């Protein structure tokens, strides 16, 4: 989740959490300073701050006329991410922050914002508390969406990790408890439980996603809260872990605007204000990963559900039952210190079933499916620089967005197409 700094400071709760924790830590300073000067403590602290960062630039192009992740039919270099972070740890406390920017087609727009900013207090292996802007625990890879250096793929399987929904998926403002519970011969359990909210910009990809079947102009999108967690079992078989993730967005609502002319100019233009809203948008994800020697195998299957109500100018137009099913299976193998290969098959299916309508004529929506077969190669040029190439064969075009600014009606899309991607990443 990325927000402009000014908005974040004004609207978020994370500065309060951050300042409370920092004050708590400072109150303990006199005891620590008993045998060392304040200046010495600060010098020591400054030297202990850790820094990290990355910058990546990619290129995407596909056959046919679908525009998938930006203007990909013509080829686009609007595909980059960059981040810089710093953190400091002492005793059971840790403080950290990352500034992040990206561009993916029309999303991101190279605006810098806070990606994560957290205060950690972990008094025991089985219990810790993290507050601020926190990476959302979801499945195997949601917390590392931007980390090219930890995988061979240019694009993560898009059925589960849709790059256009980063603002919706990456992080939340709130708090999380977490820990690792040893189970002796049975391995151990990693748990995380969180609560917070996600401020989303009206021009974010999430707004287009939630209104894909009603392409109108997005004005705002908001929710009351997000809650959820994950439970992962690190099995006794070394390298094998499996888990379940759940998240629920309460009172998710997007505000839309549509206009229609009553006739040719100078006839007046009518503007309608509408909403698409759901009490609860629920997401479930089952995950399994097995790492053995140079191999890493992974599979995840998920379902997302919501009952939406569509209002236009105060009139309840229709209700529809949304269900999205996602699945992928992947394998990657390190061949040499400079080469890693990977492949995956990814599938998604979205269905919107009208359950109540006040419209004079029946309404139905197409089932949106997409199969994606990908093959990737990663080249480690040196310890900081990597280069990746990737080819996709896509069958179906269910994940293409149909928006006011870029209409791509379902019936007009290419159903069988190839996508090529390349990306270079420098990280430190």
């Amino acid at each position: 989740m990325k927000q402009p700094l000014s908005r974040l400071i004004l609207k978020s709760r994370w500065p309060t959490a951050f300042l409370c924790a920092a004050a708590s830590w400072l109150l303990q300073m006199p005891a620590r300073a008993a045998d060392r000067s304040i200046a010495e403590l600060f010098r020591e602290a400054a030297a202990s701050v850790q820094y990290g960062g990355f910058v990546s630039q990619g290129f995407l192009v596909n056959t046919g006329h679908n525009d998938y992740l930006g203007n990909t039919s013509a080829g686009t270099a609007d595909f980059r991410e960059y981040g810089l972070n710093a953190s400091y740890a002492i005793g059971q406390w840790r403080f950290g922050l990352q500034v992040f920017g990206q561009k993916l087609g029309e999303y991101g727009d190279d605006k810098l914002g806070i990606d994560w900013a957290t205060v950690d207090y972990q008094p025991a292996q089985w219990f810790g508390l993290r507050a601020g802007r926190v990476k959302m625990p979801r499945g195997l890879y949601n917390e590392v969406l931007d980390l090219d250096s930890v995988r061979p793929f240019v694009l993560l399987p898009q059925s589960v990790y849709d790059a256009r929904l980063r603002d919706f998926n990456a992080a939340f403002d709130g708090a999380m408890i977490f820990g690792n519970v040893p189970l002796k011969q049975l391995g151990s359990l990693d748990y995380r439980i969180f609560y917070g909210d996600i401020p989303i910009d009206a021009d974010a990809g999430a707004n287009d996603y939630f209104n894909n079947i009603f392409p109108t102009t997005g004005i705002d999108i908001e929710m009351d809260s997000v809650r959820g967690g994950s439970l992962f079992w690190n099995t006794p078989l070394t390298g094998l872990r499996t888990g379940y993730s759940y998240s629920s967005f309460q009172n998710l609502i997007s505000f839309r605007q549509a206009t229609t002319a009553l006739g040719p100019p100078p006839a007046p233009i009518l503007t309608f204000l509408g909403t698409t809203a759901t009490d609860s948008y629920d997401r479930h994800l089952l995950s399994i990963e097995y790492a053995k020697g140079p191999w890493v195998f992974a599979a995840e299957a998920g379902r997302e559900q919501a009952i939406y109500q569509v209002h236009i100018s105060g009139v309840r137009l229709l209700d529809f039952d949304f269900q999205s099913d996602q699945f992928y299976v992947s394998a990657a193998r390190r061949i040499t210190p400079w080469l890693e290969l990977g492949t995956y098959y990814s599938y998604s299916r979205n269905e919107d079933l009208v359950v109540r309508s006040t419209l004079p004529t029946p309404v139905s929506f197409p089932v949106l499916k997409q199969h994606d077969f990908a093959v990737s190669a990663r080249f480690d040029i040196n310890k900081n620089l990597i280069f990746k190439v990737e080819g996709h064969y896509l069958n179906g075009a269910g994940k293409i967005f149909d928006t006011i600014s870029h209409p791509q009606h379902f019936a007009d899309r290419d159903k069988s197409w190839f996508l090529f991607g390349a990306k270079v990443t420098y990280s430190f």
Partner: protein
Amino acid sequence: MLAGHAGLKGQTLDDDGVKAVLLGKRITLGSTRVVIVFARQGEVQDAFLQPHLGMTTNQFQNHWRRLFMTGGGSAPRIVETEADARKLAAVTPGAILIADSAHAAGLAILAAP
């Protein structure tokens, strides 16, 4: 074996403890915060990581990169060689490292090979 700064003398770890500390799930030994010291490449490390964690050196570094870059942990201190790791661990309170017993003089032994 897993060794550490002399200030950690008296601490011992079983297999689960070794795994928990090296994977960042347990962040303190006694009241001291753990600082993992790791060589960019090293035969002793490779030989230790595979049976204890089921990871290659590359996978271990990726694991920590995932934690560090997402606000989930403090990164290990990376040095070029295992000899450099021993030198750094000797002067860093809370430091732990993978070492062979022949080169662990002056370090606390936390877990046998």
